[in-house]
């Protein structure tokens, strides 16, 4: 890791002030909570409080019905005021639940909030040992005793303000990325928006109509695409990908690799070059439903409007150079790397459509099964300006299909192949498309084979009813395979209508597979560069599924949209707004408050072996010239891994030092006696 510019503060001067606090005699207050009967139902709280009373240094031991209630918290505050309690132990629920409530309470009373030790006797004890009430009570006693031992040596932890660079980076310019960039820019924060492809808009621009109101996505997204592209505070880089990410929350330093467009910016996008280019390649943006040239613009309203040359397929015949009226085409453009200093990163890299060729029984993509397509391809056919100018034509013989069969849950809700999760979007997707196809071609019969139709939310039941109204036929059953008659080439879908218990062989001129939403290709390297956790399905893992869905597992990095899990457009936009808001917070405030829970080095014990540096993952320990380790306060994640690595115990994490842990271990492992000598 490159040496960071942040100020490296010598860690041993913190140690100086901490010593003065140690002398003052610990006075511990213990409070045991009934939590209604969640705890009291299993643990005899009175006995536990009584047991805690005669532990050394305990000056107050109470038990109360609801510690987290106003009177409960007041009880803690009073104990500090009246009895001069300088360490508090609350035995109730988990740290994530109410640890902070009590910490804030004692902070209001002037005590440093790290002097509070939360003991969990609910999730770790009463709820899980409901059948062994006696043992649960003993265990609660032991846990409280361990909490007291631990609390005895707790020290103050200073929270410090770290200045942040007022800029943000947004990865991915789909609907979520655009929304996040726009919201951030509107807050006055300069945004660097980078997009892997050559145009912005993501999957939304590929759709024909959006559900449930059947609006045209081009119209609803273009104010945003134009708004962001021409926003004074937004710098847009297409064909760009992340090379490396350094630094920590508030001060990131990102290297971005921008592939050349081989077309300069003075391109008027007149399209002459594409007209004369001999190369024809299936267009990825059109998901293979139309042809594009080696030099192309993905779709007419594409932003940025400059054309882009696809080096892989280009045969370098130079016709585009000669033909271009403004000589914008320039093959000599090189890959540039740019570095940005930003405070927050918002990842909105979107999703990919599941490739159904993995399910062999549906023969997607095999020779002879051209008429088996996915919903996105159907959207591309229906969209205005498509090759089939919004007509649904069979890819094999370009005829209008007499009957269309849609198959749901392709690659979803499947333990054997594909993904286990339900995407939650395909039913809405399929029903909308089915209704549109039925309205355009009334005499084509459209069938949807479903397991469970899942269209929750406002206006979606109407969407479902309107499809039924128009005559879409719904068959409850998951098709087992798509058969093709080798001679006539006809497709047959074999499905059992489980409601009437009859296996059917449906004639199908065209089969549309509702494929799942899967993490985008390239998320692996992106995730590892950002040091961000991914869920078992491969999406980026949110910090907390309910309370913090747009914060990633790493501070300073935020996620929005389908990158966090399959979702529809309205949800992605909502998440993008939230991600922008919490990403902007430290930037607008100008600083980040970080608790200085960092290790301190005892230079007499240190033998300068450098083992702590090798073990430190966030590379927060540097070896200075005289061989002694220096801790970088901001990058340190206070994980404590350096402690066991140190052969002499010279490096000790504040509040997690070896002797504090030892006291807790002794209490919990039955020993019960605190060893006096140091």
């Amino acid at each position, binding site marked *: 890791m490159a040496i960071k510019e942040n100020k490296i503060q010598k860690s041993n001067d913190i140690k100086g002030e901490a010593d003065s606090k140690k002398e003052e005699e610990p006075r511990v207050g213990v409070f045991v909570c009934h939590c209604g009967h969640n705890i009291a139902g299993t643990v005899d709280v009175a006995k536990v409080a009584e047991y805690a009373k005669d532990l050394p240094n305990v000056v107050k031991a109470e038990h109360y019905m609801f510690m987290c209630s106003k009177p409960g918290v007041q009880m803690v505050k009073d104990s500090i005021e009246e009895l001069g309690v300088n360490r508090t132990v609350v035995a109730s629920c988990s740290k994530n639940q109410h640890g902070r409530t009590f910490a804030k309470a004692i902070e209001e009373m002037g005590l440093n909030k790290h002097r509070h030790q939360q003991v969990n006797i609910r999730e770790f004890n009463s709820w899980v040992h409901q059948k062994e009430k006696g043992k649960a009570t003993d265990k609660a006693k032991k846990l409280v005793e361990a909490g007291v031992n631990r609390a005895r040596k707790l020290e103050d932890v200073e929270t410090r303000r770290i200045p942040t660079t007022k800029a943000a980076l947004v990865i991915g310019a789909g609907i979520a990325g655009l929304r996040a960039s726009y919201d951030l820019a509107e807050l006055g924060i300069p945004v660097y928006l980078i997009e892997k492809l050559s145009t912005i808009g993501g999957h939304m621009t590929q759709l024909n109509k959006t559900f449930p109101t059947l609006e045209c996505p081009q119209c609803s997204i273009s104010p945003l695409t134009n708004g962001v592209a021409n926003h004074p505070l937004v710098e847009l880089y297409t064909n760009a990908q992340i090379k490396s990410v350094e630094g920590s929350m508030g001060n990131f330093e990102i290297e971005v690799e921008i592939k050349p467009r081989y077309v300069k910016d003075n391109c008027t996008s007149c399209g002459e070059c594409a007209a004369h280019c001999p190369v024809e390649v299936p267009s990825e943006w059109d998901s293979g439903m139309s042809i594009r040239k080696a030099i192309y613009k993905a779709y007419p309203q594409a932003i940025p409007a400059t054309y882009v040359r696809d080096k892989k397929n280009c045969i370098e015949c130079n016709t585009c150079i000669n033909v271009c009226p403004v000589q914008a085409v320039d093959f000599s453009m090189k890959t540039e790397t740019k570095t940005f200093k930003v405070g927050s990163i918002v990842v909105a890299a979107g999703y990919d459509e599941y490739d159904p060729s993995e399910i062999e029984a549906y023969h997607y993509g095999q020779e002879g099964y051209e008429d088996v397509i996915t919903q996105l391809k159907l959207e591309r056919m229906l969209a205005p300006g498509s090759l089939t100018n919004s007509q649904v034509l069979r890819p094999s013989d370009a005829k209008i299909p007499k009957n269309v069969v849609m198959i749901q849950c392709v690659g979803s809700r499947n333990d054997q192949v594909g993904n286990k999760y339900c995407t939650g979007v395909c039913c809405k997707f399929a029903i909308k498309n089915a209704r549109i196809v039925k309205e355009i071609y009334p005499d084509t019969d459209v069938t949807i084979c479903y397991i469970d139709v899942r269209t929750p939310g406002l206006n979606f039941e109407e969407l479902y009813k309107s499809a039924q109204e128009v005559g879409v036929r719904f068959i409850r059953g998951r098709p087992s395979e798509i058969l093709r008659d080798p001679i006539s080439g006809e497709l047959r879908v074999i499905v059992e209508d489980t409601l009437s218990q009859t296996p059917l062989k449906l004639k199908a001129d065209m089969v549309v597979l509702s494929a799942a939403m899967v993490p985008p290709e390239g998320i692996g390297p992106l995730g590892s560069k950002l040091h961000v956790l991914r869920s078992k399905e491969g999406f980026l893992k949110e910090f907390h599924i309910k309370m913090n869905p747009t914060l990633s597992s790493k501070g300073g990095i935020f996620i929005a949209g389908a990158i966090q899990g399959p979702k529809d457009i309205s949800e992605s936009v909502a998440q993008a707004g939230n991600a922008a808001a919490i990403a902007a917070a430290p930037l607008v405030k100008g600083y980040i408050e970080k608790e200085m829970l960092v290790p301190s080095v005892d230079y007499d014990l240190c033998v300068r072996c450098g083992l702590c540096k090798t073990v430190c993952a966030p590379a927060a320990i540097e070896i200075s010239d005289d061989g002694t380790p220096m801790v970088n306060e901001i990058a340190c994640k206070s994980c404590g891994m350096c402690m066991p690595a140190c052969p002499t115990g010279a490096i000790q994490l504040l509040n997690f030092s070896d002797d504090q842990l030892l006291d807790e271990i002794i209490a919990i*492992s039955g020993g019960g006696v605190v060893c006096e000598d140091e």
Partner: protein
Amino acid sequence: MKLLQYPVEVLYAKMSECEYIEPEVLEKMENIVVFMCNECGQGSANTAGVARMAYNPAIRIVRVQCTGQVGPIQIMDALNNGADAVACVGCCLGACHFFNGNILSMHRIKLLKKLYKELGYSDQFVNQYTSRAAEGETAVGDFDDIVERLATAIRKEGTFKDGC
């Protein structure tokens, strides 16, 4: 007005699938110290608690920043002070919030097991597991595994305390 209150057991009681252990071995297990990292380790025990999944009450959880922070000193202290077995439950491999804490602790525990084997103790007293904050049953599965291994060790050689 008596609120219709389902007994808590009925609501969620999900017994652990721990195999049968005869009472005399069971009562030899007073306490098992489990170091759980602050992120996924105690998170999964938390989810197990919220889902009321029962497991052996001898399990005592000590919260540490990361299993990487638990060194041989802490484990030996626990065993010397009367713990019957010690285990570390960290985040799953590759997903440690501190990047490689769980891998480090896995190596340390592997060496420690080798050491105990050479000293003549059974190596089932110290174990390392991983779990995810979302999965309560993984934590309970780990606890069951600790108890089962300890049971086999006790049946074979007796507990750690009596210097097997």
